[in-house]
C-alpha cells in the first residue's frame, strides 16, 4: 500500500508529467476530432439531404460513402491509439509502476503499519 506522500511525489515527478502529457496529447485532440467529424456527419445527414443524396457511382451516394467513412475512421483511430499507447505511454507507465512497487517515490521511509486505506475503493 502506498502513502499519500508517495502518490504526491509520483504525481509531481517529471516522468509522470511527461506520461500525462503524452496520454492527453493523443486522447484529447483525437476525441475532439472524431466528435466534430461525427457531428458534422449527423448535421449533414439532417440538414443537407440533397448533398448526401448525390450519386457518386451507380446507386452509391455521398451519404452512404460518408457513413462508411465513419466506420473507416473509427477503425483507424482505434489502431492509431493502440500504436500510440504501445510506443509512447506504456513504457513510461510500466517503468513508473515498477518503481512505485519498490516504493522509490517515498522521500521518507513509509511509516510501518500506517494504514492509508480510506473508503471502499481500496481492497
Amino acid at each position, binding site marked *: *500500500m*502506498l502513502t*499519500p506522500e508517495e*502518490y*504526491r511525489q*509520483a*504525481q509531481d515527478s517529471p516522468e*509522470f508529467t511527461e*506520461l*500525462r502529457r503524452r*496520454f492527453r496529447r*493523443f*486522447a484529447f485532440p*483525437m*476525441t475532439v476530432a*472524431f*466528435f466534430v467529424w*461525427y*457531428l458534422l*456527419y*449527423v*448535421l449533414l*445527414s*439532417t*440538414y443537407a*439531404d440533397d448533398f*448526401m*443524396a448525390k450519386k457518386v*457511382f*451507380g*446507386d*452509391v*451516394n455521398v*451519404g*452512404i460513402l460518408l*457513413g462508411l467513412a*465513419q*466506420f473507416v475512421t*473509427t*477503425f483507424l*483511430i*482505434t*489502431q492509431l*491509439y*493502440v500504436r500510440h*499507447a504501445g510506443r509512447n*505511454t*506504456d513504457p513510461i*507507465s510500466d517503468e*513508473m*509502476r515498477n518503481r*512505485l*512497487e519498490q516504493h522509490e517515490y517515498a522521500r521518507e521511509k513509509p511509516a510501518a503499519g500506517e494504514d492509508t486505506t*480510506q*473508503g*471502499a*475503493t*481500496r*481492497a
Partner: protein
Amino acid sequence: MPDTLGLDVTAADSTIGEPAINIAIFGAFVLVTLVITFRASRNNKTAADYYAAGRNISGTQNGLAIAGDYLSAASFLGIAGAIALYGYDGFLYSIGFLVAWLVALLLVAELLRNTARFTMADVLAFRMRQRPVRMAAAISTLAVCLFYLVAQMSGAGGLVTLLLGVTGEAAQALVVILVGALMIIYVLVGGMRGTTYVQIIKASLLIAGALVMTVWVLGKYGFNLSSLLGGAEETAQAQTAPVDVLAPGAQYGATATSQLDFVSLGLALVLGTAGLPHVLMRFYTVPTAKDARKSVVWAIWLIGIFYLFSLVIGYGAGALVGADEISAAPGAVNSAAPLLAFELGGTVLLGIIAGVAFATILAVVAGLTITASASFAHDVYASVIKKGDVPPNGEVRVARITSVVIGAISIGLGILALQAGLNIAFLVALAFAVAASANLPTILYTLFWKRFTTQGALWSIYGGLIACVGLILFSPVVSGDPTALFPDVDFSWFPLKNPGIISIPLSFFLGWLGTVLSKEEPDTDKYAELEVRALTGIGAEKAVEH
C-alpha cells in the same frame, strides 16, 4: 416478389417458419449455456469472482463478451428493420452506436480498470465524500439498467408472436417470465463468469449468423453494393408508401422538430455508451488495463463489422422482402431480419436467426441484472447502509438476493410495457440519454479535472438524471400525441422525444457550476492517487488465482 414467399402474413396471428425448429434451436442454446453456467459457478467464492469473474477473462474473450453485452435485440432486429423501412436513417443509428466506443477507448476503459473495483460508483466516489456520491451513482446506474432491462424484456415478449407461434397477452407474458427466470438463474448461479460465457457464445452466434445472411444477400446481387442499393430503392418505390431509402430524411426529415430530435438522439448515442454501467463493469473482468484496451479494440472491430453486416441485411430485407410485408408482419419493423432469413434460407435459417435473437436478449438482460445487483449490494448496501461494515461474502449474498428482486421487477415492468405497447427503441434511446447525461460528465470530470468536488458530482448526476427523465415526462412520448403512452391527455410542453441535446450540456454545466460554487476544497491527495493509479496501474485490483 413478396407473393412468392408462400405464406400469409396479413393475418395478425400468423407466424413464419416452423415454431418447433425455432424453439429447438433456442432450447439448445439455453441448455448449453446453463451447463456452462453451472460449471462456471464452481469458482464463485469471493466478491471479485462474483462481480468481476475473478478478473481472469482475457482481453479477446472480453471483447467478444462486450459485443455480446452491447449488441442487443434493438441493435440486431431494430437497426436492420429501420434500414429496411427507412433506409439511410436506420444506418445513422449504427454509426452513433459504433463511434461512441472511441470515447470508451480513448478516455475511459483503461483508467477505470486501474482505479475501480466493481462498479461505476467506485471511480465516481474515489476522491469524493463516499456515501452521497455512491448513492447518486447507484441511483443512476439502477435507472439506466431498468430502462434497458424493460426494453429487452418487452422486446422478448414481442418477438414470440413472430417466432415461436404463441399469441395473446398471457402467452407473451409467459415468455417474459421465462426469459426473466433464465436470466436470474444465469446471474444467481454463474455470476459474472457465467454471464460472460453466455455473452461470448451469443456474440459468436450472432456475428456468424449475420455473416451468413450478409454473404447470401450480397451473393444475390453479384457482390456489388451498388446493385443491392439499387434493388432496395426499386422495391421501396413499388411499395404502397414509397420512400427514398438511399437518401437521409425518410424517418426524421419531416419537420424542423424531427430534425432537431435526430441531432439530439445522435448526441445521446455517441456520448451514452461510455456511461452505460453494464459496459463499464465489463472492464473490471480483465487482469490489467492493457487487457481492457485490448478488449475495447476487439469490441470495436466486432461491433463495427456487425453493423456493416446490418447495413447489408437491412437493405437486403428492404429489397427482397419489402416494406409493406415487413410492416404487416407481427413484430413489424423488428421482423425484417427474421423475414429475410426465411426468404433466403427457409425454416432452418429462420430458426437459427430466431434462436440467436432470443440468445441475444438473454445475454443482454443477464449483463444488466448483474450490474444492477452489484451496484445495489456494493454501493447502497455495503457502503451507504452498512458504512463498509459487512461480513465476508455478506455483500455477495445481498447481490444475489437483489438480482432476484431486480429480475422480478423487470419481469413485471416488461409485461406492463409490452401491454402498453411501449416503443422498445425509445426505451433504449432513453437509457443512452440517461447514461450520457447523468454518468459521462461526472466520469470525465472525475478523471481529468483536478478541482472537481462532491457538490459538482452530485449536481451533475442528479441534474442530468432529473432533466433527462423530466423532459421525457413532458415530451410527446408520454402525452399529447397519438403514439404517446397516454394518447388521451396532453401535458406535454417539451417538443423533442430525445432530451439529450438539453440534458447533456446541462449536466456538464451543473458539474462545473456545482464545483466552482462549492465551499469544500477538492481532496488533492486523493486526486494524486487517482491520477497516478489511473495512468500507471499501480494498486490496481489483481486477478484472482484459482
